């Protein structure tokens, strides 16, 4: 079904950047690495449309652009609607022989706010109508561009400016919405999750999402040192720990058939390799309060919920574990 293109580090390093240096993202910005990497996996001419959010702002401060491919800014809620319009226009122009290119691919980019929350109706509609585009959600787990407000993608217990940990609450009280599962429920041809530490897995999934006919959805984990109160040097390390703790497992669903991806399979087949969520949480200031006596109970809750979600995922992937989990 997919071409067997394998990305090597050299292939990627030799390919010119389409997301350029000189953008104004904070030092150590996870989403910036994610964009650089995903743009290395395009197969040819590609149009990108980007909802408002950090990645739009830092890459388009007039008169500068960090995009070496056609790029259109769109409103906070309309990344998928815009992509649908572009894809349709290309189809008509091709029919009328107004464009020479055999294939022009369309990528919609949005943050968690622009996907889980305000962008979901446009996304759901574009997927239901079957437009041929790849939607990339870079998930930094809050509205970072406007000052770290909680979103549907903010995890349980995270302190944000609108779920501030203090005497009243231990950070966000609600769970992270399972957005990728919601997309699978649309019956769309391709849904996957990815994390930049596992760069090859990420690139292969981008390419698959582009190659598939019809809509594809890619949920990419993207640590934000500014909003997570983490060391900028640790952004990529955090994207590894999230997978090793099974807080953010990597999987693909091709025509709604779930399959665990290689980096997460390691934890499924050797449960002793699965790390405790504490290891991931303790290096981030947004979870600092969970390590105080007042709120430490929530640590246990997060571990339990992570394990439950992991077990549910394994079941969906048809994996029965050899022994009990760590």
């Amino acid at each position, binding site marked *: 079904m997919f071409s067997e293109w394998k990305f090597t*580090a*050299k292939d*990627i*390093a*030799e390919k010119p*950047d389409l*997301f*350029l*240096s*000189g*953008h*104004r*993202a*904070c*030092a*150590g*910005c*996870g989403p*910036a*690495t994610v964009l*650089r*990497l995903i743009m290395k996996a395009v197969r040819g001419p590609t149009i990108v449309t980007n909802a408002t959010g950090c990645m739009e702002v830092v*890459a*388009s*401060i*007039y*008169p*500068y*652009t*960090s995009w*070496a491919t056609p790029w259109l800014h769109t409103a906070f809620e309309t990344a998928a609607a815009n992509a649908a319009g572009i894809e349709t226009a290309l189809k008509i122009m091709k029919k009328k022989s107004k464009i020479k290119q055999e294939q022009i691919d369309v990528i919609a980019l949005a943050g968690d706010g622009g996907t889980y929350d305000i962008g979901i109706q446009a996304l759901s509609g574009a997927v239901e109508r079957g437009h041929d585009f790849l939607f990339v959600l870079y998930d930094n787990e809050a509205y970072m561009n406007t000052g770290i407000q909680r979103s549907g993608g903010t995890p349980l217990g995270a302190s944000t400016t609108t779920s501030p940990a203090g005497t009243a609450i231990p950070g966000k009280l609600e769970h992270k919405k399972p957005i990728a599962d919601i997309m699978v429920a649309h019956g769309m041809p391709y849904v996957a999750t990815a994390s*930049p530490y596992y*760069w090859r897995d990420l690139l292969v999934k981008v390419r698959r999402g582009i190659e598939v006919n019809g809509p594809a959805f890619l949920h990419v984990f993207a640590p934000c*040192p500014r909003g997570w109160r983490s*060391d*900028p*040097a*640790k*952004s*990529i*390390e955090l994207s590894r720990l999230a997978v090793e703790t099974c807080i953010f497992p990597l999987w693909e669903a091709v025509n709604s058939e779930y399959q665990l991806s290689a980096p997460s399979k390691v934890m499924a087949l050797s449960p002793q390799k699965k790390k405790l969520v504490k290891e991931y949480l303790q290096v981030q200031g947004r979870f600092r309060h969970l390590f105080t006596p007042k709120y430490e109970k929530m640590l246990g809750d997060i571990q339990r919920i992570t394990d439950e979600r992991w077990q549910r995922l394994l079941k969906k992937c048809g994996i029965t574990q050899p022994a009990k989990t760590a």
Partner: protein
Amino acid sequence: MTAQEKSWKEIAPAGVCWKPSTKFLTGDWKTYTPLRDLEKCTRCLLCVLFCPDGAIRWNAQKGDIEFDLNFCKGCGICANECPTKAIEMKLE
């Protein structure tokens, strides 16, 4: 941006950003500078892949990587991820 490069009358109606951001140097943001130990570096290229700012590039002719400190923001991701600990972050 220095002086106004185009007046508002000359700007495309939809606001087209026309200048590549590679003309905007972000290297002066940093307080730490990456220093590589050439002996320890295996040219695995991981730092090239992970740098958020594209400040490390592969020079195929030389068969080596190069840091472009004009864009490096000193985040330390390269040093943190280097498998052989070849990069040290030095206070400027």
